[in-house]
């Protein structure tokens, strides 16, 4: 394949990545994020698998067998701990707007600037070699594919890898530094690397299938052929001497995956939802498993195929398809490796630049008031430009390193040295989130000592092999001090170089960390941050009020400060939103501590914790705060949180009580209204007969000459009206007694037939007066019931006289039917009178209905009788209902339980 074609297709591929990134960013703008998805999240974590995985695993496997797996087994073993460690880190970073591992560590130890610088420098030292091997991978794959000579050119302008480095600079800049505020997640970036992870996996599997099933006949075939070659047989077993180094390699990979800047970026900073971690916890190991399945077959296949030629094992992946003239497959493989390298470079550069600008650049800029002023409104642009330049510097440094050092080493060994550098961050970071006492002195001491040990035991030997340092240094130690030999420090021999370095660096690191923490007190600010980190789940909702701050800061200063970095409009919007949510007043002259803390937090997202601290203190007159005050504020914040919860609970209870009271009040009001209505109804009912009685009495008094029959008619009417009054008074008293529950039924065994007969006798005259016929039928087997005889009679009299009242004279017929309807007796009183509209059916038994709705008028005459009737039936555990239509008569049906008495 010609180099022109390869360049062309590589550019097309990069263009495709841009399209994906832009698409993802567009989706995130319209709130339909592609990245808010556990699968994309897990794929983005696979940025862990770099060109080293892609080409280097095969190389390593071909040399030392299954040893290559340690880099994958380590992370897989600790994956279950991610939920505990990463969830906490993610929460802390979200709450405090932390955007990189250096800020994370410096923030924990009191936002200390020096610590941030140390971590940043260590990461740079560790990661540049790592980037250089990506460059190496791309360059060598390019050279192999294009069939050009593989020798490194003497001058860089003739060197393809230099141009590749330039292209990568442009690419990384375009991807990584679009926005100022680093904590705004890069959804485009994540989508692109998730896609690259898929390409890697697909390409590797394709070449794996080709080798295993295309060239050979499956795994078994490769293994059986390889086992006939004595040289290859040793690859199958792990030499006993190596078991120790296996442990150290696994251990190293397990911690590195937590704190590699690029892993921190994708796992923590780009995390959308903490719950995505759960799925990633099994998806990510699955990815590692799949991408490693074909490593051994390819390594063994390559060894078998190129047994007699001088092909490097790191290059098998490309050389095999080319050997079989499979250019397409070779290009696909190249693309897989290219993906692995570019994704690592973009994410690593993004992470490193943020670390650089937050911990090296910004603190320098903002600590000089003059510079800060001069930057003014263009600070944002200046920072972005600086970050871009820095990317260029990183990649160029990686290029230099590649030309001078890493070309002489395998991919894996350089990668492992990088891992060892990053591992130095683990004690301070992990200790920081679980051990409150861990202090700044411990953290700085640990990282510095660990870093120095790393340099001495791992970097110096590599410089020796390059000829920078004399080999005597290695063989006899500095100044011939034997026990200071970098590869056998303090006389420790028998470990491989890497394990030896990891052992000593971490031992020194942890020892100094613990010793420093136990022997040096924390400052107030450190203590504050320690509590906020370790107990993040207690403070996450009240962060700003949990930071101890005392002093004076003008609201206007804070506003203009934010405006410098985020623009006037955006910062005002953010401040107003925050003030509204927390019920703060922005109109005051001096800002509340909460607002100051919020401003600092906002700034941390853009310029890092240390710089934000400097900038905020430049506009505020701060007062010294003691550790005790910090403890008080934390306690208050905790108490406030509890009080808030309690308040919310109480106010909820209060609300419920209020509702209940309102309901009770409503019922009382209705009851009161009903009583009122009852009274006015009763007085109305009393006034009517009184009117007649008074008028007739006066007529009789003033007209002594009345005719005898008229006189007696008047007198009779007076007597009838008086009866009516008496009845009414009795009814009112009855009803009152029934309703208040003071009336107790006088239960006895009652023959309904007798009761009805007696009632009919009492009412006979009334029916006769109106010429209404009453028919009566009773089932012969009617049982006796338990009831109050007098009250049941009252029911019959009320209902029958009510019917008589509404029957037309002469043609009125009333039927009384009694039947057994076990376990009750059913009585029906059917008339052919004027009937009643169904809308009143419910109301006629109600003594008050007249007034609850003024538009409905009570049919004349249904006074309290029906209300009393219903009450008596209910006291007998019975029911009553009416069926009727206007002009079609009415049927009252009531049922009374038979009770214990047996049928007679």
């Amino acid at each position, binding site marked *: 394949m010609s180099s022109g074609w390869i360049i062309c297709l590589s550019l097309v591929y990069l263009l495709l990545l841009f399209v994906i990134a832009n698409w993802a960013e567009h989706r995130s703008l319209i709130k339909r994020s592609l990245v808010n998805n556990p699968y994309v999240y897990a794929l983005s974590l696979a940025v862990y698998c770099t060109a080293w995985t892609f080409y280097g695993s095969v190389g390593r496997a071909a040399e030392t067998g299954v040893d290559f797996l340690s880099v994958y087994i380590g992370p897989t073993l600790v994956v279950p701990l991610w939920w505990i460690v990463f969830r906490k880190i993610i929460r802390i970073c979200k709450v405090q707007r932390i955007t990189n591992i250096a800020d994370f560590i410096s923030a924990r130890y009191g936002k200390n600037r020096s610590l941030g610088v140390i971590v940043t420098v260590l990461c740079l030292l560790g990661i540049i070699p790592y980037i250089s091997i990506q460059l190496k991978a791309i360059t060598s794959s390019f050279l192999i594919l294009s069939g050009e000579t593989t020798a490194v050119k003497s001058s860089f302008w003739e060197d393809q890898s230099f141009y590749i480095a330039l292209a990568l600079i442009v690419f990384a800049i375009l991807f990584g530094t679009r926005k100022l505020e680093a904590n705004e997640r890069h959804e485009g970036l994540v989508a692109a690397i998730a896609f690259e992870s898929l390409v890697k996996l697909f390409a590797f599997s394709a070449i794996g299938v080709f080798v295993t099933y295309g060239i050979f006949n499956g795994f078994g075939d490769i293994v059986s052929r390889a086992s006939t070659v004595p040289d290859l047989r040793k690859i199958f077993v792990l030499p006993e001497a190596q078991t120790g180094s296996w442990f150290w390699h696994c251990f190293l990979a397990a911690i590195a995956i937590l704190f590699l800047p690029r892993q921190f970026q994708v796992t923590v900073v780009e995390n959308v939802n903490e719950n995505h971690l759960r799925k990633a916890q099994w998806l990510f190991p699955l990815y590692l498993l799949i991408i490693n399945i074909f490593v051994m077959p390819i390594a063994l296949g390559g060894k078998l195929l190129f047994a007699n030629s001088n092909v490097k094992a790191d290059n098998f992946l490309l050389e095999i398809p080319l050997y079989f003239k499979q250019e397409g497959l070779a290009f696909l493989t190249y693309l897989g490796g290219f993906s692995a390298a570019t994704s690592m470079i973009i994410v690593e550069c993004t992470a490193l630049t943020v670390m650089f600008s937050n911990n090296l650049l910004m603190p320098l800029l903002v600590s000089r008031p003059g510079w800060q002023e001069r930057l003014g409104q263009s600070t944002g642009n200046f920072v972005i430009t600086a970050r871009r330049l820095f990317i260029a510097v990183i990649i160029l440094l990686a290029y230099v390193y590649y030309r001078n050092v890493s070309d002489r080493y395998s991919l894996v060994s350089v990668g492992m040295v990088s891992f060892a550098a990053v591992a130095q961050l683990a004690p301070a970071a992990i200790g920081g989130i679980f051990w409150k006492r861990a202090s700044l002195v411990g953290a700085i001491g640990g990282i510095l000592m660990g870093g120095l040990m790393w340099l001495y035991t791992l970097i110096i030997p590599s410089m020796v092999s390059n000829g920078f340092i004399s080999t005597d240094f290695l063989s006899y130690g500095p100044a011939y001090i034997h026990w200071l030999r970098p590869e056998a420090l303090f006389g420790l021999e028998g470990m491989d170089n890497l394990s030896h370095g990891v052992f000593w660096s971490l031992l020194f690191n942890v020892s100094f960390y613990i010793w420093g923490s136990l022997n040096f007190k924390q400052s107030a600010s450190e203590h504050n941050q320690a509590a906020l980190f370790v107990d993040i789940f207690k403070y996450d909702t009240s962060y700003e009020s949990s930071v101890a701050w005392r002093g004076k800061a003008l609201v206007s200063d804070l506003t203009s400060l934010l405006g410098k970095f985020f623009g006037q409009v955006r910062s005002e919007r953010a401040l107003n939103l925050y003030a509204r949510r927390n019920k703060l007043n922005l109109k005051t002259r001096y800002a509340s501590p909460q607002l100051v803390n919020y401003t600092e937090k906002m700034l941390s997202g853009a310029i890092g914790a240390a710089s934000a601290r400097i900038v905020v203190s430049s506009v505020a007159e701060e007062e010294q705060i003691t550790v005790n005050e910090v403890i008080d504020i934390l306690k208050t914040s905790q108490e406030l949180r509890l009080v808030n919860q309690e308040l919310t609970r109480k106010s909820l209870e209060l609300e419920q009580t209020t509702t209940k009271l309102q309901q009770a009040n409503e019922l009382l009001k209705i009851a009161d209204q009903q009583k009122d209505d009852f009274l006015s109804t009763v007085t109305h009912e009393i006034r009517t007969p009184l009117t007649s009685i008074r008028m007739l009495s*006066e007529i009789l008094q003033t007209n002594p000459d009345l005719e005898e029959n008229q006189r007696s008619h008047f007198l009779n009417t007076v007597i009838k009206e008086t009866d009516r009054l008496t009845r009414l008074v009795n009814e009112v008293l009855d009803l009152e007694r029934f309703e208040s529950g003071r009336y107790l039924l006088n239960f006895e065994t009652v023959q309904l037939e007798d009761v009805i007969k007696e009632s009919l006798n009492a009412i006979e005259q009334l029916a006769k007066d109106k010429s209404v016929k009453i028919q009566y039928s009773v089932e012969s087997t009617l049982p006796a019931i338990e009831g109050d005889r007098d009250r049941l009679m009252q029911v019959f009299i009320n209902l029958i006289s009510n019917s008589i009242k509404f029957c037309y004279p002469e043609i009125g017929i009333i039927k009384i039917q009694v039947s057994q309807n076990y376990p009750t007796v059913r009585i029906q009183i059917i008339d052919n009178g004027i009937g009643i509209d169904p809308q009143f059916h419910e109301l006629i038994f109600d003594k008050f209905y007249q007034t609850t709705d003024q538009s409905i008028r009570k049919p004349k005459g249904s006074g309290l009788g029906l209300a009393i009737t219903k009450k008596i039936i209910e006291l007998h555990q019975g029911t009553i209902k009416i069926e009727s239509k206007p002009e079609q008569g009415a049927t009252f049906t009531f049922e009374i339980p038979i009770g214990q008495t047996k049928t007679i």
Partner: protein
Amino acid sequence: MLSNVKVLIVDDEPSILMSLEFLMKKEGYRVFIARDGEEAFDIIKSEIPDVVLLDIMMPKVDGYQVCQFIKSSSEYTHVKVIFMSAKSKEADMKKGLELGADMYIFKPFSTRDLLNKVNTMALSTI
């Protein structure tokens, strides 16, 4: 003289109707009686009474509606309306007077008082 004055008595209580009819006839008026609002409408339309003694709570059409009917028509501008009601609340009285009634008396009432009031009204219509 009073025999030219027509008095309409509207009430659904037979005993009250009977008593008032006796009283008014004795005084010399031409008396008409109605047992409910609908009957009252018919008599008002056919006879155009001078004085209406009007109960409020009656089935079907109530006294308020009858009063409204009288007072809203230009034909009956001279007709005097006296409400006689067992409804004794201030609000009821106010409502009656707002509908244009000329007087509102509470049941029970003195026959002498009622006669005096009706006579005064009758004189004013002559």
